């Protein structure tokens, strides 16, 4: 007799799984839409991505086109945001700079997830000696200040977009690996995983079909916050001159070069600074929104 209520509950819950996988995301999406700051952030992010994609169409000039008759000009009708010390159009250079920022922000996250998630999942799921070695390694990496390590790697590899990917990827996976490991560690003890195993699911099926999808929320949150961090890292690297190779424009590099002439040619530094500030704020607002939406408890 005591079994009946439980069975009834199971019956009531049963239809849910057919659409539950999309429902978490749909719920989260609805919650984000209610968060005004996150919506504003999201719109700005979409705009930035569009600018990055269509830079060739949007930029009034080529980012390498010099005009030695008009150096360091403040904003005019010909050059809406002015020109730099080689007479290049600042607006065009900033539009192409968006491309670098977005590429680094998104590309670095793909590398970080591709390295960090498998390592963390394996470490947590297999346990034992594999786990011990990996945790020790991760602990040491964690003790190293991130930015310092990235700068060190960049100084060895030399400037360049590809090297930035490598440097951020090499150092960034540690955090996400840690998080994935912690998730997998607690999930693998849960009844539904035991159930999957009891039903004959193999190692790979259990890990990828049952454990990892449930560990996804913190990974998604970590990725949304990782994007602005990567953008910041690129800007910081380019600021001190070990990031993007000239003549490819990068906002950080423009701020770094422009700040030396701040009093005479304020526009060289101020406009890229504003671009960085807006982008970083937009991604942060969006990240906060995603986190609150996916996991209301975390707030």
């Amino acid at each position: 007799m005591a079994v009946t209520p439980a069975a009834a509950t199971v019956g009531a819950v049963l239809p849910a799984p057919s659409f539950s996988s999309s429902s978490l995301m749909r719920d989260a999406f609805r919650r984000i839409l209610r968060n005004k700051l996150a919506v504003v952030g999201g719109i700005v992010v979409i705009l930035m991505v569009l600018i990055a994609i269509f830079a060739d169409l949007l930029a009034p000039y080529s980012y390498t086109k010099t005009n030695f008759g008009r150096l360091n000009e403040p904003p005019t009708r010909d050059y809406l945001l002015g020109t730099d010390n080689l007479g290049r159009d600042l607006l065009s250079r900033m539009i192409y700079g968006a491309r670098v920022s977005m590429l680094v922000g998104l590309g670095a996250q793909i590398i970080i997830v591709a390295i960090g998630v498998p390592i963390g999942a394996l470490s947590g799921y297999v346990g034992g000696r594999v786990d011990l070695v990996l945790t020790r390694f991760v602990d040491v990496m964690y003790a190293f200040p991130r930015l310092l390590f990235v700068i060190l790697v960049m100084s060895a590899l030399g400037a360049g977009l590809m090297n930035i990917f490598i440097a951020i990827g090499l150092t960034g996976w540690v955090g996400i690996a840690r998080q994935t490991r912690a998730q997998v560690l607690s999930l693998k003890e849960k009844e539904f995983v035991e159930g999957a195993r009891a039903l004959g699911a193999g190692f790979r099926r259990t890990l990828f079909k049952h454990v990892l999808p449930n560990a996804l929320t913190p990974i998604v949150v970590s990725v949304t916050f990782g994007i602005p961090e990567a953008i910041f890292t690129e800007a910081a690297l380019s600021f001190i001159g070990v990031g993007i190779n000239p003549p490819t424009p990068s906002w950080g590099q423009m701020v770094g070069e422009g700040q030396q002439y701040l009093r005479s040619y304020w526009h060289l530094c101020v406009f890229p600074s504003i671009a960085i500030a807006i982008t970083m704020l937009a991604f942060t607002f969006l990240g906060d929104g995603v986190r609150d939406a996916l996991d209301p408890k975390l707030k």
Partner: protein
Amino acid sequence: MFHYAIRRALWLVPTLLAMALVTFLVMHATPGSPLDPVAEGANPLSPEAQKNLARAYGLDKPLYEQFVIFIVKAARFDFGTSFVYKTRTVAEILVETFPVSLLLGGMALALAVAGGLTLGILAAVYQNRGWDYVSVTLATFGVAVPNFVLAVFFIILFSFIIPLFPTGGWDSPRNWVLPTITLALGPMGVIARFTRASMLEVIRADYTRTARAKGLAERPVVFKHALKNALIPVVTLLGPMFAAVGTGSFFVESIFRVPGMGRFFVLSMTGRDYPMIMAVVLTYGVFLAIMNLVVDLLYGVLDPRIRY
């Protein structure tokens, strides 16, 4: 507790060794050699002369032996001569610049903790009212906007438009104001956000309700009962905050022309001054690792629930 402290301190050794190894290997993996005759502007040395020079600098020895020599010398704070400032040893430069960075970093950290706690407490006590929005806005700006961008805005606002402070230098306390604030804002934002969350949790706890029920005034409830407990998780933040202030100083010192270690580090990056880069990375690494250890132990002292 004592055993834990010892064990934690002993863990410092392999961590630092690993750090040194990574630094050493990365520097060795760098393409090009000082003796390479193909390098731009290098002396056209005969192979014999190259061999002699390699022997003189110990570059002919196997890699692990070179690493041991590097470690032994680094332990004695001997990092050799700077490539860029050829007449000075790296140790001399560090001794001169580290105190400047320490002063700037110390002031920034103090400001960040004081400001962050104040903002966090105000935000939690006046949740969803004016103060909350002010503090959350400030914290978000501090967290999201890189400090070199903040520096640009501050210089324009407080040096050009309202000429209150100089744009750079380090001669008088008036020069210290802008760099300190710029460096402090990021960590301050993190601390404020964290304090707010921690305070909100504690304010809803049963013992806070008990304190109120006893008839205590708002002030002792907030400061004696709530804050004391809310502070414990905030302490864990201090470790990462040291790192944030440390790496943040590269940019702030460069923009405000502060003669500290961070500025020298950035200059040595562009000059490919490898002895200098290695020394600075290790100095920061050692300093931060020790600070992390101190914070971990402090955490154990503050929270009696933690047993080792």
